């Protein structure tokens, strides 16, 4: 009960409905500082189960910083401090008792630039299950690798060369390999930080298609600088401006009828 009290105790200037009916992640008054510079301030937002939500906004607005709060990747940056609360399944992930290892196993992440390890395709996918000790025999591991690659839509392209290095794939394939690597550890949420910005349109289309299938199993938070992409893939959209969450709502609504003037300016291309 106390937990729910916490969740209600917040203030927000955000326009629109920040709540979700079936929330997976609940963030309340999250502020992030880099040394003494405030990167985002008082962001509160729910992320629903098995929904795709996109975070948009001009560059430097703090959308990536906010995304990196969900798996505490900000911890790896020197001088970065996070205030506020983020609940994942009713557990505050910034609680002192929380270990980031299981948290990050539960919250997968895909980065802007494809970053496969300089290992074979097989080892790239098997890396997560191996370090977490998810399986203890070769057969199960083969199975996980195969299923992850299938779910990432890469299996048919690489099944004959699982031993060749992951870095030898094309950009789009590398990014799908990274998605396969993330889902191999059975996460519940996948964070994507501009996953298509380094890819050509055809590879982008493939990833976007993949996102729709993945949404059946995972909650997906995607940061994108492309409004079209946000419109195509996500159910809800959140607009960030200068470190603040300005407006959030159903994608269709945001793109056709934004309420806040800043959102309007961004959508219509006056700022960006």
């Amino acid at each position, binding site marked *: 009960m106390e937990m729910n009290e916490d969740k209600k105790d917040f203030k927000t200037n955000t326009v629109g409905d920040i709540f979700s009916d079936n929330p997976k992640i609940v963030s309340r008054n999250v502020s992030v500082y880099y040394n003494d510079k405030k990167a985002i301030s008082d962001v509160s937002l729910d992320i629903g189960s098995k929904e795709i939500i996109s975070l948009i906004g001009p560059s430097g607005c703090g959308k990536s910083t906010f995304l990196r709060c969900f*798996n505490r*990747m900000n911890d*790896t940056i*020197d001088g970065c401090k996070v205030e506020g609360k983020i609940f994942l399944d009713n557990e505050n992930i910034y609680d002192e008792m929380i270990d*980031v*290892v*299981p*948290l*990050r*196993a539960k919250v*997968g*992440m895909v*980065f802007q*630039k494809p*970053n*496969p*390890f*300089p*290992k074979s395709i097989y080892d790239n996918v098997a*890396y*997560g299950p*191996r*370090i*977490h000790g998810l399986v203890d025999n070769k057969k199960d591991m083969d199975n996980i690798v195969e299923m992850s690659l299938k779910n990432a839509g890469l299996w048919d392209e690489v099944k004959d060369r699982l031993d060749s290095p992951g870095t030898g794939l094309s950009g789009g394939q590398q990014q799908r390999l*990274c998605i396969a*690597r*993330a889902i191999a*550890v059975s996460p519940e949420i996948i964070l994507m930080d501009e996953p298509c910005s380094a890819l050509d349109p055809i590879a982008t289309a493939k990833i976007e298609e993949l996102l729709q299938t993945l949404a059946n199993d995972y909650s997906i938070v995607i940061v994108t600088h492309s409004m079209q992409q946000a419109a195509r893939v996500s159910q809800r959209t959140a607009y960030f401006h200068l470190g603040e969450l300005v407006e959030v709502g159903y994608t269709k609504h945001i793109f056709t009828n934004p309420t806040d003037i800043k959102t309007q300016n961004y959508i219509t291309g006056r700022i960006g």
Partner: protein
Amino acid sequence: MTLIYLILILLFISLCWFYLGNNSAKIIKTKSGRLHSLAHYYGLYVLLYSFLPSFFVFIIISVFDDLLFSFLINDYIPDNIKIEPDYNKTIILAQIQNLIDGINFGNPSDWIILASEKMQEWFKISTISNYCFSILVAIIGGYLGFKNIDQDFRSRNSVEKIVIFLLALSSVIAILTTIGIIFSVIFESLRFFAIIPASEFLFGLTWNPQFEGAERAGSGQEGLASYGSVPLFVGTLLISFIAICIAVPVGLYSAIYLSEYSSKKERSFFKPLLEILAGIPTVVYGFFAALTVAPMLRSGGSLLGLDVASESALAAGFVMGIMIIPFVSSLSDDVINAVPQSLRDAGYALGSTKNEVILKVILPAALPGIIGSIILAVSRAIGETMIVVMAAGLAANLSFNPLDAVTTVTAQIVTILVGDQEFESAKTLSAFALALTLIVITLILNFYALYIVKKYREQYE
């Protein structure tokens, strides 16, 4: 010493030419109102025209007069001396030189006195002609340059051409050095291999160099000296191996800690401290090894019932290991830092702990670079001299036991070539053959290591 005055005179003459050139250019400018370049470029042009050729003449005369005289002096050495079995021209030249310098050992023979008088005369001639010629060239050269001055003459371009030529010339020195090294070593090595077959040198198991005289004294037996270099290479490898066994774990773990675990402050404190180890002169390490480490190992060994030689491979290798820790650690540190952050991010985002990211992501990715840095450290260890000279001894034992006394290639080179030596004997020449193999080995290692590191850098650029 008088030659230094000559250089000063040449400089003075060319400065005079600078002044003349500069002035005449200024006069032209005031008369005709235009001049292609700034006035001082005309001065510089004349200065270079005067100084460079005269300096060249000066160098030629002062370097080659010795060579010429030592050739001419042949006529003054009696034939009966030349056919003596231990005839050595270097020694005779030294005797003559001593006489010129007024140092007298015993009563020199008449022909030596005569030769030295002749020599002194020649030196006088050469000094005088050196003065005359180079001053003449300085004046004529300056005049030729001076004649070129007129309002359309592009003096700046000419000066720049000369300066760039001089710069290019200096970059050739590096090449000359290499050629010098290679030729000096290869020629003497070939002479060595004419006496001792290469197969014996490369595969022989005993190293026991002797001077010719000693050989003859040894009851007339042939083959008293033997030049099998295997024990030296075994000793070198043994000591290098011990050094690597210390330097690689310590250096690598330190690099891992400094690049991944330590805070910025800790890093900026520890890194320079570690690098002090590389800045300490090797002779200090040698002294430390011989005076402190070797006796400690010896008494420690006797406590355990082990017989440690007072000049053991272990002591030398141990101290050498300390010395090359910073090579391994800073190079590995660079290589680890060159692993892109995105790979670390990928590892952490999958829920890896720090050690999993280090051991399973960073190290495999950095492995080629780390191997490169280890190879560079090995090549450093193989070429290291003072520590082994002072702590490893000279006994050419063919042994793999780190507690035994062994010797190394570098230690042998130093012992053979230090002090007076006959350039003709197999013993002296053997040092050049050793040096040749040493150079070949270190260059191959270096080439290979740089190749690996370069390949590795390209992967992430």
